């Protein structure tokens, strides 16, 4: 197995903690300054178009964000400062029904249409002029400066508590150590004082009679030696057995992948269903590593992560770089929003390596059995890097087959066999084992 550097190593944590504690003080000032500056800058253009930027943001996210971004080209062009490019009257018309405008032969409309790969913008007849004003107000807000320095790899807010707790822990530890030292010193002093007092009172402390040292006594007792040797042998045999049984069991295997894909962000923060990407798990023996076109369903529009996605460990820049890796692999040209056709398949490192002599079918467990993915794959939604959660040993499989009751309700296939077997075993619910799930040939062929 490939050894992988532990990303959560203690030294790195300490280093980060120290680094954060150093930068903590001045970053907080910088952010405050930015926050003060922003409303001032935003106020001016918003007032000019007479729209409400806050309402506009809501409308923008609901209607426009699928195709437009503020500062980058997506399916449609970037919208920041759009008000300065076009007349408001023209914009009203365009938003409400752009294709009509293009058909009417409006030169400006045709130009925009052609600049954007002739992709037709949806019509929004439901938006009133006031709504559009609000949206324009939002798009006219100046770009907020990035508050945190990019290099440090951390933003201030989530970094804070980590640094805080580090300091307080150390302080407590130092205080405790100090108390201990004081106690030891006091003991020594008390001892000195007491012996002085005893001397003064004329009490002679008798030296203890010399007894056989315990190790010699032990060495002389053959019975004890025998017992100890047997005990040691048994213990070492236990550990040696344990060691050998671990050979080839790669529980916790956490290889570095070519693209740092975070299940925490996707399945955790964004609550994307596992089977949205791993759709093969429903019908196939394979869980299915999603093809890159599945990624592009969302990442066509998501070219960068939100500020809040970044962690102390992984910066926004780091995550954005991963998305760029995806674009390179799938051959997506961000500038033109088109596929170049030059692809580089991603060579993921396989984590769950079941031996060839075992047949495992995902659909049997996922679709038929209705077992949660997390049962075998662990709390994936918390994993920054995917790792092997289960030992994937036969004992582990068998254990589950013995305990798990087969989900039979509403499945006509099971009707007859359930009736027969529950009578035979005198139980209402049947386990996978009772269904024959322990037979060798069910998994080995």
């Amino acid at each position, binding site marked *: *197995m*490939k050894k992988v550097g532990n990303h959560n190593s203690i030294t790195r944590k300490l280093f980060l903690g120290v680094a954060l504690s150093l930068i903590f003080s001045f970053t907080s000032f910088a952010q405050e300054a930015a926050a003060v500056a922003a409303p001032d800058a935003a106020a001016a253009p918003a007032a000019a178009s007479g729209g409400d930027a806050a309402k506009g943001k809501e409308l923008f996210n609901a209607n426009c964000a699928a195709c437009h971004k503020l500062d980058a080209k997506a399916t449609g062009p970037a919208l920041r400062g759009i008000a300065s490019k076009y007349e408001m009257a023209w914009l009203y018309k365009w938003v409400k029904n752009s294709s009509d405008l293009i058909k009417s032969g409006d030169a400006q409309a045709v130009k925009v249409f052609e600049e954007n790969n002739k992709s037709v913008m949806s019509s929004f007849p439901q938006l009133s002029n006031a709504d559009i004003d609000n949206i324009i107000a939002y798009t006219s807000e100046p770009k907020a400066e990035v508050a945190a320095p990019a290099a440090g790899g951390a933003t201030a807010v989530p970094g804070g508590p980590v640094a805080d707790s580090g300091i307080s822990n150390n302080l407590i530890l130092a205080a405790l150590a100090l108390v201990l030292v004081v106690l030891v010193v006091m003991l020594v002093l008390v001892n000195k004082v007491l012996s002085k007092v005893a001397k003064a009172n004329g009490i002679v402390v008798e030296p203890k009679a010399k007894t056989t040292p315990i190790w010699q006594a032990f060495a002389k007792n053959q019975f004890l030696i025998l017992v100890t040797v047997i005990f040691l042998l048994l213990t070492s045999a236990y550990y040696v057995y344990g060691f050998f049984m671990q*050979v*080839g069991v*790669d529980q916790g295997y956490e*290889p570095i992948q070519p693209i740092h894909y975070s299940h925490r962000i996707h399945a955790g923060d964004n609550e994307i269903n596992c089977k949205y990407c791993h*759709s*093969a798990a429903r*019908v*196939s*023996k*394979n869980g*299915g*590593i*999603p*093809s*890159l*076109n*599945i990624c592009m369903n969302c990442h066509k529009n998501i070219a960068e992560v939100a500020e809040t996605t970044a962690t102390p460990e992984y910066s926004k820049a780091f995550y954005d770089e991963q998305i760029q890796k995806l674009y390179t*692999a*799938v*051959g997506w040209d961000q500038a033109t929003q088109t596929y170049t056709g030059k*692809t*580089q*398949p*991603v*060579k*993921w*490192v*396989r984590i769950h*390596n079941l*031996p*060839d*002599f*075992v*047949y495992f*079918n*995902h*659909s*049997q467990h996922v*679709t*038929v059995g209705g077992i949660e993915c997390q049962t075998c794959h662990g709390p994936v939604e918390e994993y920054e890097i995917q790792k092997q959660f289960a030992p994937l040993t036969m004992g582990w499989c068998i254990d589950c087959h013995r305990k798990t009751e087969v989900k039979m309700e*509403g*499945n*006509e*296939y*099971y*009707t*007859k*066999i359930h009736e*027969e*077997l529950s009578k*035979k075993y005198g139980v209402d619910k049947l386990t996978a084992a009772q269904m*024959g799930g322990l*037979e*060798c*040939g*069910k998994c*080995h*062929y």
Partner: protein
Amino acid sequence: MSSNKKYWKSVEELDQNSSIVEALRNNEFVEEIPNDEFLGNSDALSSSSTSRRDFLKYVGFSTAAATLAACEGPVNKSIPYVLQPEQIIPGVADYYATSVFDGFDFANLLVKTREGRPIKIDNNTIAGAKFTANARIHASILSLYDSMRLKEPKIEGKDSTWSAVDAKIKSSIADAKAKGGQVVLLTNTLASPSTERLISEFVSKNPNSKHIVYDAVSESEALDAFELVYGERALVDYDFSKASLIVSVGADFLGDWQGGSFDTGYAKGRIPKAGKMSRHFQLESNMTLSGAAADKRLPMSVSAQKQALVHIYNIVTGSSVSVKLEDKFKSEVTKAAQQLKAAGSKGVLVSGIQDKNAQLLVLAINQALASESFVTAGLRQIRKGSASNVSQLVADMKAGKVHTLIMSGVNPLYTLADSVSFQEGLKKVKTSVAFSLKEDETALLSTVAAAVPHYLESWNDLSLVKGTYSLTQPTIRPLFNTKQFQDVLLSLNGTAGSFYDYIKNTSSSIISGSSWNKVLHDGVFVSTVPTVGSGSADYSAAANALAATKVSQGLELVLYTKTGLGDGQQANNPWLQEFPDPITRVSWDNYVTVSNADAIKYELSNEIVANGGLNGSYATITTADGLKLENVPVIVQPGQAVGTVGLALGYGRKAALKEEMMVGLNAYSLYKGFNNVQSITLAKADGEHEFACVQGQKTLMGRGDIIKETSLEIFNTKDAHIWNEQPMVSLDHKEVEATKVDLWDSFDRSTGHHFNLSIDLNACTGCGACVIACHAENNVPVVGKSEVRRSRDMHWLRIDRYYSSESTFEGDNERKENIAGLTSSLSTFNEMEKAGDNPQVSFQPVMCQHCNHAPCETVCPVAATSHSRQGQNHMAYNRCVGTRYCANNCPYKVRRFNWFLYNKNSEFDYHMNDDLGRMVLNPDVNVRSRGVMEKCSMCIQMTQATILKAKREGRTIVDGEFQTACSNACSTGAMIFGDVNDKDAEVAKLAADDRMYHLLEHVGTKPNVIYHVKVRNT
């Protein structure tokens, strides 16, 4: 006490003066040990700075390093699609309907693909798809992944590009036009409306060109006869299911006669229903599959067959052409003819005699009978070749008349008898182009070797039977830089678009009432199928001419095609090479089959030698023209007509073959004038040939309970226990049925599924499609000739062939019953070991019997083999330690041991040793390693997949859904698989049938494979 004994060290001490005694006094050995020679270059050794200690250190270090390195597992990569095609889900199989015709074999297929690669061929069962895959078609999937395929076009032996090839052909055709030379397209029979249209366009564009059709194994005479009578070049697609009496004169219609694929219809009439089944007379020289299935078989030479045919013609039509039929045949042939006449429209006669007159008589007899099998039959388009046209071409080539020769799907330098003339002619041809899958004999000597894709990578359309239309579609992207012959023709014609567009265009006028997508999905489209019409010719003249045929001198050599290799196109296919011939059970060879009488006459013999292998004499065959084929191995074949010998075509290829596959001798060199009967002389040659034969024993020695046989008369009139006798054993000194006695308590097997496989010996023709299908499904390895000879073949499913010693099996049984006393038993059994001169033949497919009380399970020390509730006997390979106790305790000898590692091992250089060949492996089945026992699993991966599908869809399983690879491949319906706990299932009814019996029932193994008593309509 001192001893005066003298100890002798050697006999030399007797001689006091011997120098050896002196030498031995000081040395251990008489001669000096050649130390210097042993040490090699001693200078280099002594100058080396590596001392013995250093050497040991290095050894120790490298061992430790290797051990440490072994602790790390490999890093496996998973590479998903960038853009996943909509219809492909990794881990789920897709099926595509397609059809194949390679100039010899044809079928309507379903191709199973996994992750975009075809891995298995199944039969298309949709209505209208009537041609099922034979063993060769099942194996053709492996030919797709043949590492010896031509990977790119070559011009004069050098790698080239397609644009260069196109330019070369175009300029050559232009040059031919300018110089007035001929342009000839030499192809196999195409049966493709689009390709034929394309060629006719080519011919009309180039008036100096012509198209010649060449079939390696010719049916020219039958085609000529049919053309004469009906004005159309076609073969009759006989429907044997409508016949109650079948007379075959030298036609192996269960083999490759006129393309084969008649077995489905034939088998329908062979299963006794309401006391009736068809009767089958077979007059033939070689022992064939049809002869084995026949109720009455008459071994006779081809010249005698001709007389017999005229005799039958006389009786059926009431003519009186004089015939010279030997008396020993006369009564039997007369009986057959009279029964045929009595059967009238329910009778049919077929013949494989390569003689136009004989084929005319076949038409005359069937017309006279108004035979339903004949009259209602369609017209096969799968052979069109004309022997005379090909001969004319060779003459033209030799005369230098042919300027450009474009060949597709043919290999005349291998398949032509007169390949020397063809080669001479080829030298005079300015440009020759060979479109070929392989760089075969012809492609090697052609100017351009054009690499074509395999049929699983190509588009095509086929009209196998007139009025039907089927499509061939690619199931994988072309593996190599190949181009279809048709695409090149399109560019030569200057037609725009691909051949796919062209087919679509052609099909629009054919598939009226359906759509392209529907036909592509179904694989076939059937409009009105024209039947054999009416026509006539001068039959009596033909009869007279046939009766007057001179009997040739010497032995008659009858050339045939083997079930395994056929015409030899797939000679580089290890599955087919290792496939044991159904009759002789010999793999990896062709050989001359001689009758016992002739063997004695020419002092030829077969014997089983000490290691269990079969050895045979060599013979030299000399034809009337002095052509020789030397050192042909000999098999003494029971049932071979005296005075005839058989030899299979399709072997002895050398070009584009792995060394292991270069076996046998090329019999095409004797295929003079496309006549499969040649007059020859035979002479014994020196030496012994080592065969790889998988079955040593020939007869059942009267053990009628292994293959139970009875006659239709007894079957109809007597009780089941008479013709399907239950074995009895003694329990408490009382005779009880063996099945009622048991050592163990039985488990309750009434819950859930319980699988049974039913094999009807009446319907089994021994075609072997199941054997190859099993190979493909279960990743069964190929072990090679020398291993097969050591009885280490790995076939999970074998088809045992038994001959009777007397003229019938019943006779054997009686003879055994009548043995009295020890001496009589010894001598009788000795005689019964030998097969009769015209024996009855029975086939019995045997795979793991999945015994409910399995002897193998109780002896396994590690419980690697165990029984399941579903009736399957499981084999956990990862648990097996290879003691082979199970194989020793198996009464059926169906367990196979991996004596070696057969994959990724250059010692076994077959498909599992190269990346390309391994693409055929079924990803759902384990590839076994060395030291592991394996056996038939009753395709548990298929039953489990069926169960899972039903579970996922939340429904019960309907009968017919459960299949195994063998039952799927069986085109005759001999193998039926299913769940006996489903009372409505066909297999449950078969298990309750009177004809049902278990193999070696008295052993008490209670198998889950059931057989049905063979009934012969004698």
